């Protein structure tokens, strides 16, 4: 009983022990916060990876793919059994995306993915990441008549960060076509009057722009000018030949489509390919839904040939994973198969690169994958889970978390050395008290127990305070971030880097429990040596200690 009493009294009267408690508290709080944020980031990342990839991916080693996806899906269903609840074929090829920004061609390397609009959203979260509410419900590659989100639907913030999308869709396309017509007429009139249509060293003439705007204002009533909300004007390099800004939308030779009322094949590019976020957190778009882009990709023949076609942007894909958002472009699978020559002219059978497979909730992905691997030869087909596909990335994140945890645990280990030093000091200070207790009949175990108990108390109090501090920070990290940003005037968490508007934070009880147990364990372990020293003190020498 005296051990408890003295532990409690030492805790109350030895303020130097507070130094140890504070160290343990800060160590525990830091570990809880860092783990929560890392878990949040990891969860966000995995959700988004899984959002684009279905549970299982069945694919061909060749870009030309395999023929007859229907037969393959039946075989997959037979092998996978009831665990398989959905499948959709896809065609994925590397390609080049071209579009014009203020007369300059922009070229991007992309992964062009042909998807079945009817079934693709059923096997993945693809639909969730689109910008038009109707497309999120049911994907369509037809251009929408406005209604695109000007507020990021995945953000909890209600701030308008995409004002440019307000007039996107058919309104934007009609205005653009009208501008093109006026431009063409102006150029034609200039040519007829003998004036040079080519300014000496500037881009498109501002006076012509102003004239176009004036005509538009008179002819298109109140329709907003989406072009004005696009990327800020940048001067064309001096001496460069001015380009026709509407060439991108000009129908191909021989076609007679009216771009004001018709569209090319729809395309959904990743938002990172066609936009950027400025320092104020506002997204600037280089291309809007309603604009046309060119895509160049290889055919399925041998050797492959490059073919090019024009597509109309109908929506943007935003998974918040910059790797995907800056790489993926989605088009209807049937169009891509036709353009690549993946339809057998005799049999009419189509070819696809891969089949995305969705499993029932709770199914073991690895088991179903192995079942499929047994049925389909590995030299022709690759079957992977979504985790397999991103294995190196997920492993790197796991390793990062482990290393970070080891480093952070060293903070608590340092606190442990603090406890060790302070306890040795307390043992010296309390040498006479130890002698007194021994003269009263306290054994070595009891004396050692006082200091072990003292270490346990310090660990519990320190870890308890750290738990409270860590949880309150982890649960309010965005409010704290806002406070820090307000105080310092510096941006602590830049959404333009992470594409997250909030710092994700997930507190995992198991991790927290390990941190607490570890911290208390270190506190107790640190008190073992001082406790042994106290226990071994000779009572007579201790009583004579000054």
């Amino acid at each position: 009983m005296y051990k408890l009493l003295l532990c409690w009294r030492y805790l109350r009267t030895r303020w130097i022990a507070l130094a140890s408690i504070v160290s343990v508290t800060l160590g525990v709080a830091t570990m809880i916060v860092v783990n929560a944020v890392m878990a949040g980031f990891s969860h966000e990342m995995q959700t988004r990876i899984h959002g684009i990839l279905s549970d299982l991916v069945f694919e061909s080693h060749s870009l030309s793919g395999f023929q007859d996806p229907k037969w393959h899906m039946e075989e997959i269903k037979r092998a996978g059994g009831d665990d398989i609840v959905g499948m959709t074929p896809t065609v994925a090829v590397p390609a080049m995306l071209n579009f014009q920004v203020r007369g300059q061609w922009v070229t991007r390397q992309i992964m062009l993915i042909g998807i079945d609009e009817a079934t693709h959203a059923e096997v993945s979260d693809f639909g969730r990441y689109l910008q038009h509410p109707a497309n999120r419900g049911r994907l369509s590659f037809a251009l929408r008549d406005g209604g695109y989100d000007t507020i990021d639907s995945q953000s909890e913030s209600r701030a308008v960060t995409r004002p440019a999308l307000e007039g996107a869709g058919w309104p934007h396309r009609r205005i653009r076509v009208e501008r093109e017509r006026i431009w063409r007429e102006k150029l034609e009139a200039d040519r007829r009057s003998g004036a040079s249509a080519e300014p000496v060293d500037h881009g498109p003439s501002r006076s012509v722009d102003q004239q176009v705007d004036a005509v538009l204002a008179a002819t298109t009533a109140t329709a907003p000018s989406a072009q004005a909300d696009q990327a800020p004007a940048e001067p064309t390099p001096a001496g460069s030949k001015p380009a026709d800004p509407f060439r991108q939308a000009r129908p191909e030779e021989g076609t007679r489509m009216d771009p004001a009322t018709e569209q090319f094949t729809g395309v959904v590019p990743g938002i990172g390919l066609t936009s950027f976020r400025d320092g104020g957190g506002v997204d600037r778009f280089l291309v809007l839904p309603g604009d046309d882009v060119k895509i160049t990709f290889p055919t399925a023949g041998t050797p492959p040939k490059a073919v090019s076609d024009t597509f109309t942007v109908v929506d943007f894909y935003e998974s918040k994973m910059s790797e995907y958002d800056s790489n993926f472009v989605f088009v209807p699978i049937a169009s891509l198969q036709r353009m690549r020559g993946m339809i057998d002219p005799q049999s009419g059978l189509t070819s696809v690169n891969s089949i995305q497979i969705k499993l029932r909730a709770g199914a073991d992905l690895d088991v179903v994958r192995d079942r499929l691997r047994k049925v389909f030869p590995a030299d022709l087909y690759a079957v992977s889970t979504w985790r397999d596909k991103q294995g190196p990335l997920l492993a790197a994140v796991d390793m990062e978390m482990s290393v970070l945890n080891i480093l952070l645990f060293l903070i608590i280990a340092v606190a442990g050395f603090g406890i060790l030093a302070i306890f040795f000091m307390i043992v010296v200070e309390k040498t006479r008290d130890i002698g007194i207790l021994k003269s009263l009949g306290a054994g070595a175990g009891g004396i050692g127990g006082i200091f072990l108990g003292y270490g346990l108390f310090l660990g519990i109090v320190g870890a308890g305070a750290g738990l409270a501090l860590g949880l309150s920070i982890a649960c309010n990290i965005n409010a704290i971030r806002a406070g820090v940003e307000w105080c310092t005037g510096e941006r602590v968490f830049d959404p333009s880097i992470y594409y997250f508007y909030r710092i994700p934070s997930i507190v995992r009880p198991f991790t927290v429990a390990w941190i607490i147990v570890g911290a208390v364990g270190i506190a107790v372990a640190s008190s073992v040596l001082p406790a042994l020293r106290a226990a071994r003190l000779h009572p007579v020498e201790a009583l004579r200690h000054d």
Partner: protein
Amino acid sequence: MTDARTPLVCVRGMRKTYRSGEGTLEVLRGVDFDLAAGEFVSIVGQSGSGKSTLLHLMGLLDVADAGSIELDGVRVDGLSAARRDRLRNTAIGMVFQSYHLLPELDALENVLAPLMVRHGVWEWLRARRRARDTARALLDRFGLGGRLRHKPRQLSGGEMQRVAIARALVTRPRVLLADEPTGNLDEATGGGILQTLGELNRADGLSIVLVTHDPTVARRADRIVRLAAGRVDDAPSPADLAARRWAG
């Protein structure tokens, strides 16, 4: 039970040598000492004569190089550390010159300390009410009923020593070992402490061994044992000779 022929404490051939650095200091060179039940004995001697060492050995705080100690006829010097701890807690009470109270505890808790050492948590929860009553009664008896919650630093030297005596008595020991209990006190306060010890011996039949270098203090005891150069000195002291001459 102790009979007339069996002393309560019996020390035989006690030897103790301290080593400091390369040198040695032989403090006790074969001391024989008996304490009868209910007896009040003073051990006197000059500084360094070994009287405190003898007391520590009898209190089982130290281990002798040679010799034996019997308590109630049972040899106790060779017991295990745990059994010696237990015996110190139950059968031996000790009082020191510097009081040796625990500064974090108040007067009542200091008196209760030996009982808390004896009991585990659950046992203490059952025994604490009775223990507190006993401790309060002892402090009341020594005139400290109003200072129960005072910390040692709030008490005078005499009060601290009385708390120390109450602490030594709370376990109802067979023998009380007092090491210079008046050494840090003025004459009047020291006299009060000696009077208390005398009363405990007479009224309660408590066996007491009092170590002192002061002959005046030593004379309060029934018997005086003189230590000189690590041995019991049987020759009468000058003061004894003077007293005998006066009596004769």
